[in-house]
């Protein structure tokens, strides 16, 4: 399968690492032979219709900070849109950073790819949180697949658990810890009795939180994931503006102490019932949802099967890349069926 990779940050690089390390296994076990025909980063693109040498692109990225420095295949300044429109490929992987203001440039990348009949795998929450219904219609109309397992739960198959494993059952509500950074901060505050500022500082030192932590601590990241789940799993046509959002900046040590007396703690919980809501919420320490550190956990309440909780690491390069790989394999299998029918 010919793949265009847009965005060559931690996730994109991890994906190409998996491709190089698991090449033989992917062909043998899954009949999947990925050929990355183009990679685009901030400074340009590298293009080879037969497939790029990924060891080479990884070392270029590490040493020169751009794949555009490729001496024969590099195109400094070449834009992602130009590549999507002009390079032949079956699928694009969109792994540029999330922007929840207008979803760009990811939104344009995805729209253009779908319009040119390319399948899309994305880890970018922005375009989906703002315009998932739009993108779904565009994908259906162009007979293209749009996959985004990596947007919720990182490598943990949260979306697939609900969509596939609970097929036939009706999911009544969802609640979960959807953001690893805030969960780390709250766990630290509760366990080591330190303030929000101190805990945030630690998280930043460990690389769990960004210099500007707003996306995480103000609940926006969790809200994006909630919107994706509501659309995909529960068929609600909602976007980010339909979510009531409250972050964790105002969670006090006092409140945590009070909760602890009741064998409870405070977690940033995203929930989908009639309404979509992200807010610090007191839950029992015995609740399977109550996980510590950077872990994520989601509980599905379904009509027949009852409650199921899935726990896993919610972020990370390799973790998210593994979700992309799952999506790509899924597309390959669907295409094979389509081609041979």
């Amino acid at each position: 399968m010919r793949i265009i990779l847009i965005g060559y940050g931690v996730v994109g690089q991890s994906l190409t690492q998996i491709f190089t390390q698991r090449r033989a296994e992917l062909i043998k076990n899954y009949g999947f032979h990925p050929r990355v025909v183009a990679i685009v980063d901030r400074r340009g693109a590298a293009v080879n219709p037969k497939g790029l040498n990924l060891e080479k692109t990884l070392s270029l990225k590490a040493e020169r900070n751009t794949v555009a420095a490729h001496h024969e295949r590099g195109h400094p300044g070449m834009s992602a849109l130009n590549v999507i429109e002009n390079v032949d490929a079956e699928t694009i992987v969109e792994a540029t950073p999330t922007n929840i203001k207008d979803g760009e440039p990811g939104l344009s990348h995805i729209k253009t790819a779908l319009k040119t009949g390319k399948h899309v795998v994305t880890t970018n929450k922005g375009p989906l949180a703002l315009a998932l219904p739009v993108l779904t219609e565009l994908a259906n109309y162009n007979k293209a697949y749009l996959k985004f397992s990596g947007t919720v739960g990182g490598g943990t198959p949260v979306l697939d658990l609900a969509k596939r494993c609970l097929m036939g059952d009706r999911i009544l509500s969802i609640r979960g810890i959807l953001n690893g950074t805030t969960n780390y901060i709250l766990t630290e505050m509760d366990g080591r009795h330190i303030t929000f500022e101190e805990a945030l500082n630690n998280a930043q030192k460990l690389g769990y939180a960004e210099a500007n932590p707003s996306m995480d601590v103000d609940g926006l990241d969790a809200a994006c994931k909630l919107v994706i789940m509501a659309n995909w799993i529960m068929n609600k046509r909602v976007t980010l503006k339909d979510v009531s959002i409250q972050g964790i900046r105002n969670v006090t040590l006092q409140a945590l102490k009070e909760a602890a007396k009741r064998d409870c703690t405070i977690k940033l919980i995203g929930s989908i019932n009639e309404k979509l809501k992200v807010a610090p919420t007191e839950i029992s320490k015995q609740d399977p949802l109550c996980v510590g550190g950077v872990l994520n956990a989601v509980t599905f309440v379904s009509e027949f099967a009852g409650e199921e909780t899935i726990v896993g690491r919610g972020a990370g390069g390799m973790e998210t890349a593994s979700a992309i790989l799952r999506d790509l394999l899924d597309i390959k299998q669907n295409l094979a069926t389509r081609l041979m029918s």
Partner: protein
Amino acid sequence: MKRVVMKFGGTSVGNGEHIRHVASLISNHLNKDYQMVVVISALKRVTDKLIEASKEAKSGNRDHVHKLLQKTTKKHVAAARNAIKNKQIRDEVEQTLKTILDELEKVLTGIIYLGELTPKSKDYVLSFGERMSTLIVWGALRDLGLNVQYFTGKDAGIVTDSNFGEARPLIKVTLHEVKQKVEPLLEKGIIPVVTGYIAANQDGEITTLGRGGSDYTATIIAAALEADEVWIWTDVDGLMTSDPKIVPSTKVISELSFQEAIELAIFGAKAMHPKALEPAMEKEVPVRIRNTFNPQSLGTLIVKEQKIKAKDVVKGTTIIKNLALINISGAGMVGTPGTAAKVFDMLGKNNINVLMISQSASEANISFILHRDGLERAVSTLEIALLGSGLIREVTAEDDVCVVAVVGAGMKGTPGVAARLFGAIARKGLNVRMIAQGSSELNISFVVKETDGEKAVRAIHEEFKL
């Protein structure tokens, strides 16, 4: 009295002087007791310009369209002036040319406004090339005092289906109509001058005959009139034993059969389109390919059946470049009925055109040849569809191959041709990647590295003394 349909290609009527030369060629034959129908292509490169103009019109580039129109006008007016000496005839032709060009301008303006170019309107635009060139030749012939009548393909009675851009004649209707409309003129000693390439559907809407265009017009008319010969006047001496750029000692093939000509054409020799040979083959009208600029040469004669001399088993050899080879292999294909069918059905549905196929009796692999520009898509499609199905293990590709085709009816039933052929290739140290021979034995094609292709052609030339 000999009845001949003559077709003159774009180079033959490239400019006014050439058109005058063509007119005198026709006139010379008249004195030799010939009944003639003349079919004319568009002036050299005019069809390309018309295609360009229609595309530019579709994109709304008014200025560019205007420039192209001006150039086209200039070219045809100049040709008419040089081709026709008599002022009265020249004025008449120029006047008609202006009317035709006005019409063309209107059509292109319409396309600019609509921003839409349908196959039907494109055919209409393309028809102007032959309408103008034929008009000028008609004038040049009158200038020499010949009794001529101008026909469009439609007026001559060629009726096609409505598959614009690549229309097929309703052949029975066409043969009947053409005979009725054109034959009476011949009896009266008039020379019909007919636009090549263009025709009309049964509702009178203009269509074009697609590839092989004007040659096709000539053979259709020849079939209808049961002519003695079709002469295709072009700018080469005839079909060559090979490409003179590869083998300097290449010669004109003096005579060959329709079957051989079709094989050579399919394999890319600069020859007639197989479709255009059909009507002539059907009615057994011999086709002669001649050089306008070297009329003394008799050219190449294509006939129904040709006596095969023992020494010339091979007629010609051609090379097709820009190809790629794909090999799919896997033990899963062995003894699994329908594997090849599945593979080629899938490729067909995805518009991937396969030129040549070979499968070993072990069934463990299938190799095939396709055009190079579709290689990456073909490999990717095959991998997605077949890898992991247990049927195949891997898909490999080579993008530097070419096909060498060897054609000759004499190969049929002559033992040892293949041995001689591949012996000659082996002596040059060339590695043959794939071989195919149809059971008609009319042609053997094989695949070598592109860099070895010309060496292989030369080796064959030497071995069979072409």
